[in-house]
Each structure stands twice: as C-alpha cells, then as structure tokens.
C-alpha cells in the first residue's frame, strides 16, 4: 500500500502571542511544530504500515525550514519525504495550496492520502478536502478510527461529529482527514534519528509541477483577509446579594435566557 501523509509545519500556538498593534501573530522565537492533527495522521499511516505493510510518504509545502518537520516525520518512521518549496508558491491560501499539492500528488502512486483535519495556525479545515476534489477522490473528513481489510482493500472509517458518528466504508484510492483524538502519535525513534544522516528530503519546485501559473501562490489565492483582531471579552459584571433559593432561580433563568440550558 502506498500512503501519502500531508503535513504542515506550524508555529506552536500554545506559546504564540498576538501583536496588539498590528493584530498579527508574533512568530519571532516561537518554536515550529508538526501540526497536531497532521502528526496524528502520520501515526494512523504508520499503524497501517505496521499492520498491513505500506510505504509512507510525507509531503509538505512551505519554506525550506519545513525540512525539520519532515525530518521528524522520517524519524517517526515515514519512508520518504517531499518538500514543495518555491517562491512561486508563497502567499498561497487554501485553494492555491490544495491545487499545488494536488499537482504534486498527481504524478505519484497512492492508495490512501491522509491529511490532518485542520492546522492550528489557520483552522480552516479546507486543504485536505480540496485536495480530494482536485484529484477527484472520495473523501472522509473527521476520521477518528481507520481500519483496513487487506483482502477487499476497503477502509472502514469512523467519522466523528459533535453529537454522534458514522461508520463508513471506502475503497482506495481515497483521502481521509483525521482528528488529533484518533490516536497518540509515537515518539521519534532513536534509530530513525540516527538514520537521518543517510536520508534526504526530496525537493519539488515550481518547474517540477504541471500546473498553470495563475493558480499558484498569492496570485491564485481568492482569499482576502479584511481584518484580524483579538477577541475582546466583555465580562459585564453584576453583583447581587440573594438568598440561595432566589439565587438559584435567577441563575437558571439567566442561563435559559441565553439559551445555555
């Protein structure tokens, strides 16, 4: 089985702060990590590899420094790593990104493509599903469990919603987007780290893709950011002194009024 895992390097948003003047992310000195949902996607792929045998390729689009995230993926057990990097790809929104990645995948063998549900820096959850559309593949988003029958070559996927789930069966080739709750990603292996000395990340540039210039990078990005801002919390405090029975009634009425209960 050939599995491609799409993986994005993102700033660790648990450490990130927003510049109050410009309302943009302060990325200086913030550690870059593999996007958590994508890391889980890699773990799902590695578990399929262990159970059924597979070659796992990790693919990322981003600046040269994303090589580090790919190195981490290789040390976890991925077989091959590809980085799509070129000035022509810069400034891409989800549409331009998904078209670029789809163009790269088009020439590759695959039975399964796994992407994380969404990246913690943009939170759009669009790139995975868009890749599937560009490649005309069946897709299942929000996967939290992935099984495979090697005889029938059918994947059984549990698709999680807020209030329930679906169990779906799909034949490969297909695309899944997985939730970070699906499983706990493994640690990098010491041997995998030592072996990085003999591994290279395959670099793909603009010239390696068959795609029109208009759909790439900033030019190919219809998304326009109008404004970004820090959410202001309006606490609207009020102090009341009531006996417990009255207080309980008031709390219940207020919550009901706000449709919270």
């Amino acid at each position, binding site marked *: 089985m050939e599995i491609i895992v799409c993986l994005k390097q993102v700033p660790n948003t648990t450490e990130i702060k927003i510049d109050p003047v410009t309302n943009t992310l302060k990325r200086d000195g913030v550690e870059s990590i593999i996007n958590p949902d994508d890391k889980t996607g890699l773990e799902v792929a590695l578990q399929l590899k262990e159970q059924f045998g597979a070659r796992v390729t990790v693919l990322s689009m981003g600046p040269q420094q994303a090589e580090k995230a790919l190195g981490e993926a290789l040390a976890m057990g991925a077989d091959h790593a590809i980085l799509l990097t070129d000035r022509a790809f810069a400034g891409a929104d989800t549409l331009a990104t998904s078209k670029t990645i789809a163009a790269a995948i088009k020439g590759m063998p695959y039975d399964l493509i796994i992407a994380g549900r969404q990246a913690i820096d943009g939170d759009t959850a669009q790139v995975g599903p868009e890749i599937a559309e560009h490649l005309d593949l069946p897709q299942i988003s929000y996967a939290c469990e992935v099984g495979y029958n090697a005889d029938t070559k059918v994947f059984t996927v549990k698709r999680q919603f807020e209030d329930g789930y679906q169990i779906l069966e799909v034949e490969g080739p297909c695309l899944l987007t997985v939730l970070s709750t699906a499983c706990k990603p493994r640690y990098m292996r010491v041997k995998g780290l*030592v072996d990085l000395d003999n591994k290279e990340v395959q670099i793909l540039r603009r010239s390696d893709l068959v795609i029109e210039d208009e759909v790439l990078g900033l030019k190919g990005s219809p998304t326009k950011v109008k404004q970004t801002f820090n959410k202001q919390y309006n606490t609207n405090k009020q102090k009341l002194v009531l006996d417990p029975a009255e207080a309980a009634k008031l709390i219940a009425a207020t919550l009901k009024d706000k449709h919270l209960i």
Partner: protein
Amino acid sequence: MNSQLKYELFEKMVKEFTENEVKPLAHELDETERFPAETVAKMAEIGLLGINVPKQYGGAGGDMRMYIKAVEIISKACATTGVVLSAHTSLCVTPILEYGTEEQKQKYVPKLASGEWLGAFGLTEPNAGTDAKNQQSIAVDMGDHYVLNGTKIFITNGGKANVYVIFAMTDKSLGLKGITAFIVEATTPGFSIGKKELKMGIRGSSTTELIFENMIIPKSQVLGRVGEGYKIAMKTLDGGRIGIAAQALGIAEGALEETVKYVKERKQFGMPIAKQQNTQFVLADLATKVEAAKMLVYAAADAKQAKDPTLSVKAAMAKLYASETAMEVTNKAVQLHGGYGYTREYPVERMMRDAKITEIYEGTSEVQRMVIAGALLR
C-alpha cells in the same frame, strides 16, 4: 540530511518523552521507592536503551553525545530514571561491547540494546569498592567452569537486571591482577538478591545486595581475559562516570529551572524575591557553574567517543565538578525556596537528596581527585 538536525531532533524527542512520561512520575517514585518499570519499557520501545550501540548488535548506532544528553535531560526531571539508563548502558552494555567475544556480544547486546533485558554491574563489596584488591567474591577454576561464591552490595538495578557484569578473585595471590570479570545471568542457579537498600535519594532506583552461592559459571562467561577484571572495571567506570556526571548535570539544571520559576513568583518585602540582589547573584553563580559543568561533561563524552587516552582524567573532572555543582545548586535552590523548599511539595527537596549520591557512587569525589592528581603527578 544535515547531521546537526539529528542532534536537535533527538533533544526534542527526549524532552517530550521526559515531559510526558518521566516528570509526572518523579515525585511518586521517590515517595513510594518504586522502580519505574513502565518507563523502562517505554524507553526500550523508542530505542533509548541502546542509543550508542552499533546497529549490528541491535542498537540505534548513535554516539556518546546522544546517550549523555539523554541521561542529562531525563535526570533533570527524575534522577532515578536517569541512573537506570546510565547503569544499564555504561556499566553493562559498554563493557560487553568493548571486552566481549563475538559470541558474547551476539548473545547479550541485542537483548540489552532492545531493552528486552536490563543490565547491571557488580564490583562493590562490604570491604572493597574502588579499592578492589580486597574482593571477597571468589571464582574457583574447576577445569571447564568456575564456581563463584560471594556477595556484592549497593548494586544499581539489582533485582531488576537480567544480566550482570560481575567481578571476582580468580587468583588472590596476584592481587588486582587476580580479578576476573564474568557475565552472569540472573537466572543462574545460586544467584539471589539480598537486602534492598533504603536510601536518602534516587529512591526509585533499585539498589540491592547480590548473593552468589556455588554458582556454576561456564568459562564462556569470562569477560575479557582471566586476570583482566580490574582493568575492565576501571575502564568501565571511566565511561560510567560520564553518565553519572550527566545525571548530576541534569539534577543541577532541573533545580536551577525550578528555582528561577519560583523566585519570580514568591513575593517578600513587597516584591518577587527575584528582584533582590542576593537572589540574582546566587542564581548567576549557579548558572555559570552549571554551564561549566556542561562543558566538562560534553568534553568527556567526546573523549570517550574519540577513544581519547586522557579519557580517565576528563571523566573524573566531569564527574567531580558536575556532582559538586549538583550538590551546591540543589542546596542553594532549597535555600532560595525557604521553608517551602524543605517540604516535599516542591521538587528541589528531592533533587537535593538525589544530588548527594552523585558525589559518592562510581567513585567518590575523593577518588576522582585521586585520579586527577595521579595523572598530574605521574
């Protein structure tokens, strides 16, 4: 890929592992004096028990720098877990790799490197530590095998290890040259675990007595040559001391980190104690010593990797300085924490107790000074 990335990601991995798997247990292991078997299994799974073992023997094929870094980072959170790794790697896997026959290496190293088996080392006896010529453990040559009788004490990983590198007298008349090293499996008839020590620090580490009663040891279990045991023990301890130095360095770094956090929070006289010059000057001195210890520890690790003939002195200096730094840093960390630092609610109390052993085992600070002075005055 750029080989620097390997070290960078290795550090990241060990830090994540320590944060998630080691740190949360440190307090409980100390309180209950429990050996962290589950952590050892997890370390095995990711390859931490065979970091610097060549791939042909089932290891990861990494180097001393990586191994030492792992002991340091793990010990920063839990010195107990750190010494399990150090004793296993430096005192059991390494001598078998360096002095073992090809058969011995094939038989033992893959199982040790994978963590299927844990290793330990037995030299110390009630009347013989570094001064090994008083060894009371006797191995009598019976032609095709030895019969081994005796007792060892203070054995790290005792009762938990499957394989022990054991030293015993094979010819008392030759003194130090009458000592021979053996590879002993815990399942050997006549092998038993005696008293488990109740210790001041590293309380989760299993430290026990080993008792040998008429153990039949085939000659194929002799490690190195007959009579070469003392040399093997001393060379092994040269390497082991770097592991303990890394453990001490980790304890010092851990205590410093906890203290930096605490002094920013703790308010006295209307301000965080971090604003007071005494706090600042003490912390500045401690941080400088930690950095100096780090340089000595890494230099010793590089010397071991490069088979540098001055390893012995470098390892002694690293252990002497790092362990005394650990003691000083943890002592002052407790002082800066005030009354809270003396309680078991804050980790510096445990760290101070843990630091003390690094000045004692695998050669006391006095023995390190003997090694250093001995080389100077040769």
